[in-house]
Each structure stands twice: as structure tokens, then as C-alpha cells.
């Protein structure tokens, strides 16, 4: 009887050891970001940044908490250019939404989209230049 208890405990420890090791194996895997779709979105956003950079700097556009961008202060933009700023913001947000979705699904976990978005939201703000506007926990703030 003692041996059967020992066997049971041994099996239990074995299962426990497997459980301890398996997260390490999963953690070693890198996140896949080298798909054609992600590269396309990336270069589209990169070329758009040439136009957006000035609007980040003068505060017309800021970074939102959900990993997108928004018009922060339209008054610094001449009236004639406001529509183009709106279009830039909309196009950028389309790309960003697609990017988060694409990264999640490229890694086989579409349900990760929200977490990918959160990660990006933090990193965009972290890497933003001084003077750019971003949405913090208590509204707009200047970096």
C-alpha cells in the first residue's frame, strides 16, 4: 500500500515538473512580426509619419491611450489644412488597428489583440519625443 501511495506521489511530482518546465519553453518563443501584412502596414505608417511628425510636434495630434492617435488641438492648424489632418489621423488609425489585429493573428492568438494594443499604447508614449501630447490616465498631457 505504501508503494502505491509513493507511485501516486511520483506521478504527481512528474506532472508538477512538466508544468514548471512548459512555461519556459513557451516563453522562449519570439513574437512573429515578419509577415508581409505587418511589413506593409509598417511601411505605410512610416511614410505617413513624414506628414504626421509636424502635427505631433505642434500639438495638433496626440497619442491616445488605446494605441491610436487623435486630433488634440485643431486650432494650431490653418483652417485649410484641418481636413487633411483629419484624413491623416483616420488613415493612421486604420493602419494601427490593422497592425494590432495582424500581430495577434500572425501569432495564432487573435484574442491577444487588446493586449498587443495596450503594449503598443505604452511604447508609443514611451518613445514619443518631448513636447508631444499623449493621453494619460487623467487626460491629455505634454511629454
Amino acid at each position, binding site marked *: *500500500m505504501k508503494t*502505491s*501511495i509513493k*507511485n*501516486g*506521489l511520483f*506521478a*504527481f511530482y512528474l*506532472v508538477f515538473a*512538466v*508544468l514548471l518546465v*512548459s*512555461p519556459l519553453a*513557451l*516563453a522562449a*518563443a*519570439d*513574437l512573429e*512580426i515578419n509577415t508581409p501584412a*505587418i511589413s506593409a502596414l*509598417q511601411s505605410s*505608417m*512610416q511614410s505617413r*509619419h513624414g506628414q504626421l511628425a509636424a502635427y505631433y510636434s505642434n500639438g495638433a495630434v496626440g497619442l491616445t491611450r488605446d494605441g491610436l492617435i487623435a486630433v488634440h488641438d485643431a486650432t494650431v492648424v490653418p483652417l485649410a489644412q484641418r481636413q487633411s489632418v483629419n484624413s491623416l489621423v483616420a488613415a493612421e488609425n486604420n493602419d494601427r488597428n490593422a*497592425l494590432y489585429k495582424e*500581430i495577434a493573428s500572425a501569432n495564432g*492568438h487573435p484574442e*491577444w489583440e487588446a*493586449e*498587443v494594443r495596450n*503594449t*503598443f499604447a*505604452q*511604447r*508609443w508614449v514611451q*518613445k514619443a519625443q518631448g513636447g508631444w501630447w499623449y493621453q494619460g490616465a487623467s487626460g491629455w498631457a505634454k511629454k
Partner: protein
Amino acid sequence: MQRWIRQLPAALGLSAILVLPACVTINVYFPAADAEKAADKIIDEVWQLKNKPSSQDAPAQAPASVPAK
């Protein structure tokens, strides 16, 4: 009491069977650190943040790769 002890291994085995799939599900967690690295890579590219320090490498690599093709 003795019957209970005799059933203990079976109970442990059964609980392991029940617990294992749950743990495997939990282990498919979101790799936050990897995601951060991936995000940084993409942001550096989009905002061209890494171009300034590596601008010396870029011209050196570009001509080298052109004759190779």
C-alpha cells in the same frame, strides 16, 4: 480510513488529469516582454528612431549589397 488511503493515488491521478489541461490553458499566456520588444522594433521603424545612430552603417551596407546583386 484504510480504504481512503487506498484510493489516494487514484484521487491524486484524477486531480492531476483535471488540473493539467487547465494549467496548459493558462500557460498560453500573453508574452508581454516579447510583445514589448516587437512593439519597440516596429515603432523604431515607423518613427525611424534607430536611423540616427545607425546612419553610419546604412550607407556602408547599401553600396556593399548593390554590387552583390
